[in-house]
Every structure is written in C-alpha cells, then in structure tokens.
C-alpha cells in the first residue's frame, strides 16, 4: 500500500516526512499543547495580572469555588448551559430528521438542501442581529402574533423567554448541517428494504418507524452527540443577541461566563477552572461517542 522506498530507503523518506510535518507539529506545540498545559496550570492557580512572576499555586480552591452549589456558577449558569444544549439539540435533531426524510422524497433535492444550509454559511453576527430584530416588539414575529390576536412577547427582555428564544435560534442555525449528514445516512439505506416492505403492504409511516429510523441510527447518533457538544461550548450567539447573558443571567452559559471572568474581570484562575469543568463534561461525552462507535465496529481506519 505504501510507496516502496527507493535508493536511500526509509532514511530519505523519514527526513522528508519530518520536514513536511514540521510546520504542523511546531504549530500544534505552540498553539495546542502549550496552551492546554497552560490552561491546566491556570486552573490550579491564583493570578490576576499579566506578569507571570506573580502567579501563585492555589490547589483546588478555584474548582471548589466554581462547583459550590450555592455559588453562581452551577445555578443558573451550568444549568442554562445544559438547557441550551439539550433544547437546541432536541429541536435541531427532530427538525432535521423530519426535513431530511421529506426532502429525500421530493424532486430538486439539491435546491432544498441549499436553502436549509443558508444559516450554516452566514456569520453569527448576521444571524444574531436578524433574530434580535425579529424578536423586537415591532419585529416580524410579534407582528405575526399580533395579527393572530396575541399580545407582543418580550422574547429577549423577559427572563423567562430569553433562554428559549436564543435556543431556538441556535437550533435553527444548525439544522442545515444535520440535514446533510442525515441525508447521507438515508441514501445509504438499500432501496430493496422499502420495496420488500411495500410488497408486504406497509404504509410510509410504518416504513419510517421500522426501516428508516433503525437504519439511520449511526448518523442520528453522530448528529445528536456532535450537536450536543457544539451546544455546550457555543456562546457567540449569546454575546451577539444579549450582550451580557441577560436579562439577569438568564441566558448566561458556562463558556460565556468563562469569557467574562477572564477578559472582563481578569480572574484567570476562576475562568480556567470553569473552562476545565466544561471540558471534562465534553470529554466524557466525546469518549462515550467513541465507545459507542467502537462497539458498533465503526472505528476510523
């Protein structure tokens, strides 16, 4: 499979290979390994300034502060993070299964998929601002509600509506990517299963539940887990739509709180501990995903 070594053999190949890999490896050392180690050190230290000489070891006190149950991080921020991720992944997965299944039965499939893909291509600033505009009392959504005889809702100003409101936007923006991956999964289901079911007189509802859904499970699982991880760590939409995670912290999520602690208050230690807590949660989910994939014999080659 690999190139047969010519004269000079492995030695010559090896030197060229290391030279070709050098830019990438050097980069990963400076921008991944070093920052990762630095992040671990910061999480266990007490430091407020910019002079590395004043950094002090603080043991697990940052973690103790962050994970205290009566502190402000676990509730509402960690809870918000989970609600945001679970809410958007549920909406996006449900929506994308429905849409991918329906598109698969229509003509001009490429055209439909491009429409659903538009939000994936747009910047978060465009998405966030347009929806912010649509959520205003004088915006499109309240306009429609008023026509239907419903009073205007302060989607982003009422603390009980704000988190669901941004969750919907995040789900809306991620449906297109999920539709694509599910479409690839749908295309991989052999046509003959449906033909056999048709001969047996099954209707399309039964075919969906007994053929499509079970055979779609690997793609579905991939979409669920990657979207959930994406939801746990995203906060750009929250900055754009709410500026400060308000009203009264109702839309504040862990990654955003980390950002604020670090760059607004200069609390590197606390912020890094928050990042670590979130990272461990995401790592656990990633390992779960790898474990499920391996059990199914779908390991990367």
């Amino acid at each position: 499979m690999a190139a047969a070594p010519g004269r000079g053999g492995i030695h010559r190949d090896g030197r060229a290979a290391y030279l070709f890999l050098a830019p990438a490896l050097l980069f990963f050392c400076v921008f991944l390994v070093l920052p990762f180690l630095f992040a671990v050190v910061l999480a266990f230290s007490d430091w407020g300034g910019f002079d590395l000489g004043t950094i002090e070891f603080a043991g697990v006190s940052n973690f103790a502060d962050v994970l205290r149950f009566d502190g402000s991080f676990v509730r509402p921020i960690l809870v918000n993070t989970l609600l945001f991720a679970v809410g958007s992944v549920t909406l996006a997965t449900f929506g994308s299964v429905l849409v991918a299944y329906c598109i698969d039965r229509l003509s001009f499939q490429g055209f439909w998929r491009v429409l659903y893909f538009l939000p994936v291509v747009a910047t978060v600033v465009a998405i966030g601002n347009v929806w912010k505009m649509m959520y205003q009392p004088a915006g499109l959504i309240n306009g429609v509600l008023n026509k239907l005889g419903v009073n205007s809702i302060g989607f982003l100003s009422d603390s009980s509506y704000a988190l669901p409101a941004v969750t919907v936007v995040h789900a809306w923006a991620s449906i297109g990517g999920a539709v694509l991956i599910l479409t690839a999964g749908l295309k991989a289901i052999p046509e003959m299963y449906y033909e056999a079911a048709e001969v047996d007189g099954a209707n399309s509802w039964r075919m969906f539940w007994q053929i499509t859904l079970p055979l779609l499970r690997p793609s579905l699982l991939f979409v669920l887990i990657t979207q959930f991880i994406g939801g746990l760590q995203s906060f750009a939409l929250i900055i754009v739509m709410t500026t400060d995670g308000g009203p009264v912290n109702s839309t504040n999520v862990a990654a955003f709180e980390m950002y604020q602690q670090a760059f607004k208050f200069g609390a590197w230690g606390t912020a890094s501990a928050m990042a670590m807590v979130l990272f461990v949660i995401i790592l656990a989910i990633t390992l779960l995903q790898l474990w499920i994939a391996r059990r199914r014999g779908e390991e990367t080659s």
Partner: protein
Amino acid sequence: MRRRRGGFPWFAYLVVILGAVAMVMPFLDMVMSSFKGAGEYGVIPYRLLPESFGLDNYRAAFEQLELVRLFRNSVIVTVSVTVSVLITSSLAGYALAKLRFRGRAVIFRFILATMMLPPFLLLIPTFLIMLNWPLAGGNDLLGRGGDGGLTTSLVALILPFTVSGFGIFLMRQFMVSLPDEMLEAARIDGANQWQTWRLIVLPQTKPVAITLGLITFIGTWNEYIWTLLISSSSPELQTLPVGIQLLQSFLDPDRTMPIVMAGLVISTLPVLAVFLAFQKYYVRGVVLSGLK
C-alpha cells in the same frame, strides 16, 4: 430516480416548504430592512416591505462602519489563513499518507486528538501567549516589557489558525487513494520528495483542496470570538462581523438597525457567492467530516 412510494408526497412538500420559509424569512427580513428609510423601522404594526428601495443605508454603512477598512482586514485574514491551511495540510497529509517513517501512527493519532480540544479551552492561554510573545510588540526575549506583544497586529488573527487538524486529516484521507505507481514513476525519473509533492501530488489534490479551501474560507470569514477579543484593545484590527456588531451596540437601534442590516448584507454576500458557486464541494466536506 429516488423512491416514489404512493402518489404525490404532499405532506413532504408541506413540511419542506414551511421549513424553507422559516430558513429564508430572516434573510429576507434582513434584506428588506436594509432598504427601510428613517421612521420606517421599529414601527407597529410590522411591515416586511420598505416603502421604497433607497440605497441610503448602504451609503451610510460605508461611511459610519468604515466598511472598506473592515473589508480589507477580512480579506487579508481570510486569504492568509486559507492559503496557509491548504499548504500545511497538503504537506502534512502527504507525509502521513505516502511516506514511511518512524512514529507515523503516533503522529497521526496525535493530529486526530488535536481535533478534540474545544476552542474555548484554549482561548485564555492562547491570548496570554500572544500577549507575551517573545520579541514582538516591544517584548524582550522572555516576552516581557512590551505593550501587547503580537496582539496589536493582524498576525494575531492569522497565526492561531494557520494549521488545521481537520485539514490534515481530510488531505491524508484523500491522498491515501492516490496510486503509488505515479509517485514511484516520479522518483525513478529522479524527482526528490519535494518535487514529487509539488509537481505530482499537489495538482492531483484539486478536488479536496477546493473542499478544504471553502470550509476554511467560510469559517475564517465568519470567525467572531477570537477577533472580538484581540480587537477589543486594537479597533484597527476589526473584521466585518466584529466591526458591525460593535457599531450596533453603541447606537440607538431604531435609527441604526437598517444601517447595520445593510452592512450585514454586504458582509454576507461574498461568502454566499463563494458558497453558491462551490456548494457541491462544501456539502461534500460537511458530509466527509460527518463520516470520519
């Protein structure tokens, strides 16, 4: 040629069209609002269509948002990142796919693992590293004493994105399938590895390079958090998304929202054009990343 089960799938059409309206409506609202004149925006009851299609907001966007400066920064950063990701991914991908050397498996696994580190975790330390970069922005050899290190130049927006683990993975997967005979023939003709890569491998990678280039281009053009952070003390480094967002947060929304929308239309158009022209390749990249 797709399966047709029982007559006209009216239910499927209904779902897909309703969903498509929900997908497109916000963008339509964005474009329509960008034409609304003074006193037309923020009025109850809501109206989608503007009274006339004047270009005042676009003119104002160019003046108040300094769109030319933002555009230039966006182009410099996006082109630099895309070109360097393509080069570094192609070099590393070739080594991992076609060259035999000690540690190949370990390095490949390491590169796969880099994709698992979430960006938010690296945000704080990377910022501090850029700030204390030795011999930059007045820093001494130990990275001290200066004012801002690398964070005061566009380099700060480019350097942390010049290599992509996903890009290396994508290139490697593609190059594995290139026939070995072709590479051997080059070597028999006396080409060294560099020449083989440059003259034989690189021209063959066009399809995957377009995919990777597009994903990188769109991702970089739309990048927000890191640029927001770096440009918070150096406004001259703002790119389109950051510049537009910061302006809208300073001013009275009812007056400026249509101007912001005009800016957003302008900032969305390049990426939309690139996507529509090459969407086949972009779609393939997303599916490939889903099947890894």
